[in-house]
């Protein structure tokens, strides 16, 4: 934590689609840096002191919930855990995450996208007996390594960084994106999910699915949780290619 007081310049995209005739503009706010300051702290200070209309989303402010992804000096990341001291020039440019419906300023509708993704990949355990499990009896056993491996793929927080960093998504509106592939890989690995490879093929075996990926791997570069997107996309492709 630096004790040197700097004046930070925040350049922020301002646009409220709810206001008729409003047009997107960049606005600059200057605030004094504090030790350990994050973009979460800075944006709240800007809202409270200078401009109460500014919109952004934070919930856990601890890098856990995935609400606050935005473009920070050109790169998608979680704003809550980005320290202002990371930027030696003291200039920080904030844009809303592309690839999602804009709500206003830095707030985007990731919820709608993620719910549709979950419905599309049927993001749940498919087992017709699951509802009739006798809850009094011992749970079904699972190999401890398998459980750990599933958790590794389930650490996604649906922040949307992978979607915004994906060039394929920019070209194909309906592209499933890395978040969807990771979810599919998670269920494909889970022995409790009884879906066959053919059933997974129905979900992702086309150009809007895993075969559309141009392997530019912005998802891998910008995932705040360091999920293994590259490996999993390759794995799913191989698995799907073997079907035909």
């Amino acid at each position, binding site marked *: 934590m630096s004790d040197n007081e700097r004046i930070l310049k925040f350049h922020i995209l301002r646009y*409220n689609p*709810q*206001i008729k005739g409003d047009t997107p503009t960049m606005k600059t706010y200057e605030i004094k840096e504090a*030790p*350990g300051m*994050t973009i979460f702290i800075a944006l709240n200070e800007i809202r409270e002191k200078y*401009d*109460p*209309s500014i*919109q952004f*989303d*934070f*919930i*856990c*402010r*601890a*890098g*856990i*919930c*995935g*609400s606050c992804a935005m473009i920070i000096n050109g790169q998608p990341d979680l704003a809550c*855990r980005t*320290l202002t001291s990371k930027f030696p020039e003291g200039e920080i440019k904030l844009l809303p995450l592309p690839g999602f419906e804009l*709500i*206003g300023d830095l*707030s985007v509708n*990731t*919820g*709608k996208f*993620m*719910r549709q993704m*979950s*419905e599309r990949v049927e*993001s*749940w*355990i498919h*087992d017709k007996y*699951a*509802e009739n*499990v006798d*809850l*009094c*009896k*011992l*749970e*079904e*056993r*699972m*190999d*401890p390594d398998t*459980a*750990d491996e*599933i*958790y590794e793929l*389930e650490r996604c*927080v*649906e922040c949307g960084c992978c979607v915004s960093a994906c060039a394929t998504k920019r070209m194909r509106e309906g592209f499933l994106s890395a978040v969807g592939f990771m979810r599919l890989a998670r269920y494909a690995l*889970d022995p*409790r*999910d009884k879906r066959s490879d053919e059933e997974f093929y129905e979900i992702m075996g086309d150009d809007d699915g895993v075969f559309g990926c141009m392997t530019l791997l912005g998802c891998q570069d910008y995932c705040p949780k360091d999920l293994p997107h590259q490996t999993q996309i390759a794995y799913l492709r191989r698995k799907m290619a073997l079907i035909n």
Partner: protein
Amino acid sequence: MKVIYTDSLVIGGGLAGLRVAIASRQRGCDTIVLSLMPAKRSHSAAAQGGMQASLGASIKGEGDNEEVHFGDTVKGSDWGCDQDVARMFVNTAPKAIRQLTAWGVPWSRVRRGDREVVINGKKVTITEKSEAHGLITSRDFGGTKKWRTCFTSDGTGHTMLYAMDNKAIELGIPVHERKEAIALIHEDGVCHGAVVRDLVTGELIAYVAKATTIATGGYGRLYAVSTNAVISEGIGTAIALETGVATLGNMEAVQFHPTAIVPVGILTTEGCRGDGGLLLDKDGYRFMPDYEPDKKELASRDVVSRRMTEHIRKGKGVPSRYGDHLWLDITLLGKAHIDKNLREVKEICEYFLGIDPVKEYIPVRPTQHYSMGGVRTKATGESPTLKGLFSAGESACWDMHGFNRLGGNSVAETVVAGMIVGEYVADHCDNNSLNINTKLIEKFIRREENKIIKLLNRDTGENPFELKKEMQNIMMDKVGIFRNGADLEKAVEELKVLNQRARNIALRNRISTSNPELVEAIRVPKMIKLAQCVAYGAMLRTESRGAHAREDFPERNDKDWLKRTLTTWSSEDADLPEISYEDLNIMKMEMPPGSRGYGVDNTVHHPDTEKRVAEIEEIQAANPDADRFEMQELLNPIEIPEKFRGKNERIGRGFK
């Protein structure tokens, strides 16, 4: 006027809310969930450490069962809990966790053979049994006799919430996002739904329902520094209070967690200490064994937080520009363990403190963490005074936590309460028809509309952000870990003044659509009312129980205070809540009041305690052949929905 009709309206999309929604949907009720944001972003996701359920599969959990879990929970509550509810909870928790297993949670599992763990600062090898291999494992947590806390590495809440929301999506339950309930619609003691504001368009919508469930989490953000998410502002609890009919329970019961990082207050899980982490002072000295020789760092949370504060007051804290703190040392756990089981902690240390906890100590201090108080409910989850209003999870005072919650019992409560209350919500929907005059709906919509118009039209007045800050500082300074009469009186007076000032809020950004300042202006007066409930309740309760610690009344006083605080707010113009009490009936307790086993026992006992102890001994003597289930039936007969009544199986002992 836009009106949406449903059977079961659930306000809040965290674990408890989703589980209630799933229950009512599965029973065939039309169900809608309202959420401030996408449900998967709820604060439930932040629970890193785990969920208590007495599965007893790990070798260190051997011998665990419902009785042991019950005992820990009641002791942890400092006998302030409702023992019927605690019983319902411990008996159902194993079923809840097994159901979540079927729904996809990748719980960490028992691995047969030797493994090295850290216990009391020393490396020890324990050997897991072959027959338990692949069952759900558990870790140690504070205030528990057995290793009972089941977990998914360090992302327990995350994986539970994802499984739960995915289940809700599978069932096609609509989650209406970016919607905030700002008032309940009610008449003649019946709740009919809520007035809801769309946070994007600003539109007011009436959601009319047979059953309305509040599951909006805790009110941690009444405090300046809290581990809670920024949305944990207690608004659901506040709209129940504002009916003037529903009651809140034990609002003064607020828990401080021992280990949040300094200064930002982000939590490092109790799993750090459960897995062997130590607390050190400025000299690098391990001080907890001096205060609590038995449980040391793993005493109950309220106890550890107070001991840390005492130690800092003795001048043993580490000075910093943000005030004194202590150290949490997990370096002795080793890199491999931290990378796997405490990774979120590691990430938090790296991003927010710039330190590596594998090599360096973590600066921590006790920080507001959990709200035991909330919407008072019966064991069914329904408000005793407002029919059709239910509550579950942290927003409720269902009352299994009394005056202090055990680590690992909160996410467990969310899913167990969700299961049980969800069944009663569905029963309610089956047995009642929607009967409401549209004039009533209009009255409530107009009332809220007028308030907003007034806010938007006022030219000068108070700044809502400033009012909130002042409130948070009052709570922090005067209604904190240690409390005393003089400070509490001041807090009550100062909050009263804030309440009056909050009637005169004016906005700089005067638009009715998406407007964060307007959101704040609607919430802050509600938050101040809740803060008043906490401070006033704390001032009147002249004893120390669980997390409510009075320096001027250090003893637990069962004789005068074995009772639950009930708070109502009868009129809009009032500037203080009304407080009354309901007695806890010792003669019905399965476990009569005793000592928690921390420090000196200076309890002022209630005359009934001795009587009940004698009565229980008689019952036991008269039924020498009764097994533990029969004994529970004799001492504490409870009602659980039919489908959750069966006995729970455990490895090595079957259904015994």
